[in-house]
């Protein structure tokens, strides 16, 4: 069974009297363990697709099934619970809470899972260790470099042990060396069996995934498996 199953997805935004049709019938499925790049120029609808996949936004038409659960007509509370249970987010601008330490940021999704405090802290440290930032656990985001911040964000996305990781331009704010380090980490997480979707407009980043879905003007124009370029060789 597919991890993500999308059928005939439409999304349009109302801009005053005009309606902007962003997604025009997307059909698309992702198996467990895949590492998929969603590519496209700006305005192609790739971020909108990711937001719908991440339940941050809702489609006007079509069906979306996540791990056998139909995602439809969710109220805010239900959407929040699903996000917490199913999804981990990695953002271009990291979106760490600036007054919380690295470890506290990582532990935050676990807080919303009602995990006991001690367990939460242990788990946060464990995931920080996985991204190589155990020594930075007590530091605030402002004391970390961009690459380190993104790694904290990845640890946070991983901490809740989600079914799918959604990364929106995860390397958009980073230089190429740091970008490859982050991609290396994402590849390793994927190697461990996690399903990951990466939105990017950079071809070299897309080549580091196993499959590239190309979006143009709200439709999929290309969907191909590629031979993965390992990021480790550039690090």
């Amino acid at each position, binding site marked *: 069974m597919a991890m993500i199953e999308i059928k005939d997805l439409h999304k349009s935004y109302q801009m005053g009297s005009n309606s902007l049709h962003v997604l025009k019938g997307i059909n698309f499925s992702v198996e467990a363990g895949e590492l998929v790049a969603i590519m496209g120029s700006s305005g192609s609808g790739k971020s909108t697709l990711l937001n719908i996949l991440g339940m*941050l936004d809702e489609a006007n038409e079509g069906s979306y099934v996540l791990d056998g659960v139909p995602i439809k007509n969710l109220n805010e509370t239900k959407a929040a619970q699903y996000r917490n249970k199913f999804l981990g987010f990695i953002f271009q601008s990291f979106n760490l809470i600036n007054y919380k330490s690295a470890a506290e940021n990582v532990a*935050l999704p676990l807080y919303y899972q009602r995990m006991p405090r001690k367990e939460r802290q242990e788990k946060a440290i464990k995931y920080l260790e996985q991204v190589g930032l155990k020594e930075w656990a007590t530091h605030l985001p402002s004391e970390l470099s961009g690459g380190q911040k993104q790694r904290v964000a990845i640890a946070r996305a991983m901490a809740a042990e989600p079914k799918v990781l959604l990364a929106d331009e995860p390397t958009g704010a980073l230089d190429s060396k740091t970008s490859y380090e982050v991609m290396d980490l994402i590849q390793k997480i994927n190697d461990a069996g996690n399903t990951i979707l990466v939105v990017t407009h950079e071809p070299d980043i897309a080549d580091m995934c196993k499959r590239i879905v190309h979006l143009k003007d709200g439709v999929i124009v290309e969907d191909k498996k590629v031979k993965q370029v390992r990021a480790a060789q550039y690090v």
Partner: protein
Amino acid sequence: MFNRDNWKEIFETIQKNKLRTFLSGFTVALGILIFVVLYGFGNGLKNTFNEFFGNDATNVLYLFPGRTSEPYLGYKANRRIEFDNSDLKDIKENFAMFLDYVTPQISRGALAKYGEESDNYSIRAAAPSIQEAEKVILMEGRFINQSDIDNKTKNIVIGRLVKKDLFQGKPALGEFIDLGGSSYRVVGVFQDDGGDREERIIYMSYTTRQRLDKATDKVDQIIVGFKPAIGYEGAMALEKSLSTYFREKKYISPKDPNGMYIRNVTDQLKQNQQFAGVLQIIISFFCVGTLIAGIIGISNIMVFVVKERTKEIGIRKALGATPKSVIGTILLESIFITTISGFIGMMIGVGILTGLGDTLKDYFITDPYIDMGIAIASTIMLIIFGGIAGYIPAKRAADIKPIVALRDE
């Protein structure tokens, strides 16, 4: 909503956002502080007011003889009018149904001596009922009584400060004081809320005084205590008929302003009460204004706080925070801060009022105070309004879609 983990999260947030916490706490504390102090000052003003006007009985008319300024019924002008014991009797007989009591008053000064100590005091000779007119409070012994009047005894009742001056802490009851050459027995000690001057007075029977003054029956003035039930209108009517009666009896022209005077305290009382009422309205106006300003201040801070946290709310929602938990956290945090700082502000305000005491007496503020009930109620009101003011923007922020909130820079 009330588990320990939630509170830990809230405390951490408070701790790590010191400026924000300080700002909102400061606003609340300042608001309630100003309210408490203003309210206290208002009460202080009223205290001063009551001290000025409120220490004697108000159901009283004072009758003073004067000197005529107009000729009348064959009498020349500039004739001196005098009151005597027959006037007391006449008042009692003719106005009985309105009266509570009637007492004459004869005031003299005298040198009082006891052992080595001596000083000048004013001596009031009167009937027992002057105790009511002057609101004299007995501390020990008894007041002048009817037997003192009938027997023209040489018993006196002295003020608290007279006792303090002359007896230096020794017991005074039953002791003899030398007053202008003859000795009098102290039968009572009194206090009076009207101030120090009122406690440096010695009371004696008016009949005793009249015997001393070469067996005369003259009195300086007459104090008429009327039944409070007759009210303001009744008091004004009584004043008028007393005036008519005495002008007839003493042959004073009805138009003569100087032959005799009647001081009517009710009239003053009414003015005073009106003045106090206006004062109360002004003070209430200030207090309500301060409270509203405080509420607006808190609301502003709350809107600002929530606005500042929009992105954080977006992040939390992306990580799985439900709208309810977002609102709950923000509300609990703000209520916690307002409660603590509100009560701190209140306690500081009460502390300031208590500390001030009499120091602002020159500015007509005496012993400012606030009822604890009002202080606490207004603090709670501020907290509730702060909560409402926080809830509305928090609810709105929690309803924003996470992507919109995340875009907020």
